[in-house]
């Protein structure tokens, strides 16, 4: 089994949840964490607007996903694992998930199914997800404690995205070909989920999927809420984050985009910390001014990025700043 970590490292596997953390490092941290009881969670929250790759994997490759889970449990010595499932997917997937419960039981692993609350973006944030599974309020936990050391019920916990577990199974079967899934959506002729090399540039991905776009269009990378928007020469870099490309209407105004994002964050924020809870409504007010007061807005989003309690607040700066840069690039 120790070989597996080396294999994962060699394959250069990075987490597909959006933050891009090297998989072998996280697995090793849980493996090395002291404690008899350890847990594994597969995060199938898929809360980024429009992203559908987890859905595809759970409908077409469910066996491989749970093979990855089984391998993880075996490696770290976990007897219990969870799948945190997107509210809308859950009922449809339930019969198939229950089959996996039976299958993993034969390997001595108890798989528990957890249906996330409806429309909960924050529910996919790993520490909030753990609170939800424990039956607590949907609030993020302090970032001074890592889940790999003290996660679910204070035990070392390995949390990975659906696609990460799928990739691990591929590495184990030696079928991993360094590809990943991209959800393409927005104003494009061919939307859907595509499997392409993980280091492919955005321009190339659009070309390969025969999606010709208006050069004025902004492409939002890695999530319809918290990803950056790119156009022009920026499109010549690989698409990072959660693996999605949303092509915006070329005629959409900056104000409309900002409003769409900030309203989304306003609906989804948890209310714990100042920069997010109080910063978001202030930005919504600032947007209403005749001329967008960019300096004031970016000052708040920078503070959010530097000081917010959880990933939600910290990520608001990315789309907002990238929009500002796209508008002001030469």
């Amino acid at each position, binding site marked *: 089994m120790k070989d597996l970590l080396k294999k994962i490292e060699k394959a250069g596997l990075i987490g597909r949840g959006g933050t891009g953390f090297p998989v072998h490092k996280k697995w090793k941290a849980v493996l090395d964490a002291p404690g008899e009881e350890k847990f594994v969670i597969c995060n199938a929250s898929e809360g980024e607007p429009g992203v559908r790759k987890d859905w595809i994997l759970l409908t077409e490759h469910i066996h491989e996903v749970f093979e990855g889970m089984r391998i993880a449990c075996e490696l770290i010595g976990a007897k219990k694992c969870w799948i945190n499932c997107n509210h809308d997917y859950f009922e449809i997937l339930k019969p198939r998930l229950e089959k996996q419960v039976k299958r993993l039981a034969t390997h001595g692993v108890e798989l528990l199914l957890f249906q996330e609350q409806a429309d909960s973006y924050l529910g996919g944030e790993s520490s909030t997800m753990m609170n939800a599974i424990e039956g607590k*309020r*949907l*609030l993020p936990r*302090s970032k*001074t404690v890592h889940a790999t050391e003290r996660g679910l019920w204070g035990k070392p916990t390995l949390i990975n995205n659906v696609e990460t577990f799928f990739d691990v199974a591929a590495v184990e079967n030696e079928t991993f070909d360094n590809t990943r899934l991209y959800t393409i959506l927005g104003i494009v002729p061919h939307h859907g989920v595509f499997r392409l090399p993980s280091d492919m540039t955005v321009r190339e991905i659009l070309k390969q999927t025969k999606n010709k776009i208006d050069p004025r269009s902004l492409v939002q990378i890695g999530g319809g809420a918290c990803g950056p928007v790119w156009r022009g020469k920026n499109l010549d870099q690989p698409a990072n984050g959660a693996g999605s490309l949303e092509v915006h209407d070329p005629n959409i105004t900056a104000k409309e985009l900002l409003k769409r994002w900030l309203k989304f964050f*306003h*609906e*989804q*924020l*948890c*209310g*714990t*910390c*100042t*920069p997010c*809870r*109080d*910063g*978001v*409504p*202030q930005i919504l*007010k600032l947007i209403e001014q005749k001329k967008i007061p960019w300096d004031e807005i970016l*000052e*708040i989003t*920078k*503070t959010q990025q*530097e*000081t*917010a*309690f959880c990933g939600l607040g910290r990520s608001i700066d990315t789309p907002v700043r990238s929009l500002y840069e796209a508008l002001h690039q030469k």
Partner: protein
Amino acid sequence: MKNISFSLNGKKISAKPEESVLHAALKAGMKIPHVCFGTELKPTESCRTCIVEDEETGRIHTSCALVPKEGMKLRSDTEKIEKARKINLELLFAGHQDQCHDCNEGRWCKIAYQCESLGLDLKKYAPRENKGLIERFDGESVIEFDPSSCINCNKCIEACRKCSVAYLFEKGIGKDVTIGNHGGKMACTFCGKCTIVCPTGAIRTHNSIAAVEAALKNPKKIVIVQPAPAIRGTLGEGWNKEYDKTWTGKMYAALRCIGFDKIFDVNFGADITTMVEAKELGERLEKKENLPMFTSCCPSWVRYVEHFQPQLVPNLTSARSPHIHSGGAYKTWWAQQENINPDDIFVVSVLPCTAKKYEIRRKELMVNDGKHYPVDEALTTREFITMLRDRNVEWDDLKEENPDELAEYSGAGAIYGSSGGVMESALRSAAWFLTGKNLPKLELTEVRGMEGIKSAEIKIGDRTLKVGVVATVQNIPQVLSILKKDPDAFHYIEVMACPGGCVGGGGQPSYDFITQVDKRRKNLYTIDDHKSIRCAHENTQVAKYLSWCDTQKPTVKKSLLETRFFDRKTTH
């Protein structure tokens, strides 16, 4: 485990294992601005203003939750940190200055201070959204919550859970999050811990300043003020002073500055309470009735009994609380002596307590055939400090003064403000009642201190009295389980709702460390040590008053010295 050494802004600090950076820094006398942190509370990490930067990694941490690693180099003063902190503070307090008029700290709050020292602009952002109407806890004019000032730091929830009955909870989620209360389902004990920890005055005591100012302006009213025992051990903190023996005299001088007509003293009332309570203790011990006897001078504790443990109602001493005893004496005995119509007397108590604002409105305490409440208004220490600041009173300028004619007290009365003080006072006099002699050693050091539960066995004559002293109602279940196993475990139990007793009361100034409360507590014992009379039964004015009471009809005497309690659990 070894202490951890780290540096903050280049200064070396040593932290205990698991101690946070902010806690260790405050202890070392360094300041990092913070809003939602309390040394006694679990960090909620919500305000994001106590941030520090790791010099090596450039990462920003909240110092309230960060446990330092050996050799860590942190800075709280980099440009990046100062800018982010300023924005977070400006977001938190956007429009806050519009709320001063409702707040009993007036313009003297920490926010105003921070605005000045950090150069905050509270008009930079639009005022925060108003999330609803002001709500009075349990419908009483004691503690109220103004959601528009609330910054969701949840300190009140933590404090309530730690000290009282978990009356408060976090209500709603996301943009609608606010503080909810269980009013209607359970009772608030009015201990006021939430009002001390609230950094914005969103949870605050009912403001009694206006009513007191109105009485002072009314030429018909003779306004009597009486300060509680704890006040003289605390007041100088309003000007960041260290205690010395001039504080009692300065307190009277400060009361004089407000313009009260008469300055009397709750300590006089405390000696009355001791006499009534010690006598009752002796009687109950003789008859072996309703033991253990519990003290009842803490109205928050009484409210807890009535609402949560009504089976203990018969065990509460029927003695009134000190300021109610003395307030009653002014409106009857003193009024008669001075030939004053009690209608014209307005009694103001200055107290470390929030629950007393509730107690003064209890109908069964009325005197003169139910015509007068013994006390008309109850000011907290904080409200009193605000009134003094509004009059530009400077502590250092105050010259010691004496009170007016009705303010004699013993050392026993002085220590009422400390946990264990009521017990000690009562035993000094109970011994005298039971044996006709004073105890060989008046200081009962076993029942002094900051512990939540203390116990001792005291020899009085040929009997051994088993006594318990409890601070905060959180410790009551433990005491009850001891009593369940052994009903004779205690003869007499003192309970105070606040840590350290009244000196740690809900109306007191806020503090960084609980050691501040311990200091206030010790100040009171210093007063006792220097008093020529140490026991309530040596107080000549109290003796005169009690013999006057003896000349009254039994029902009248009862209405002056005793009170009743009720089972209120069934009402909700």
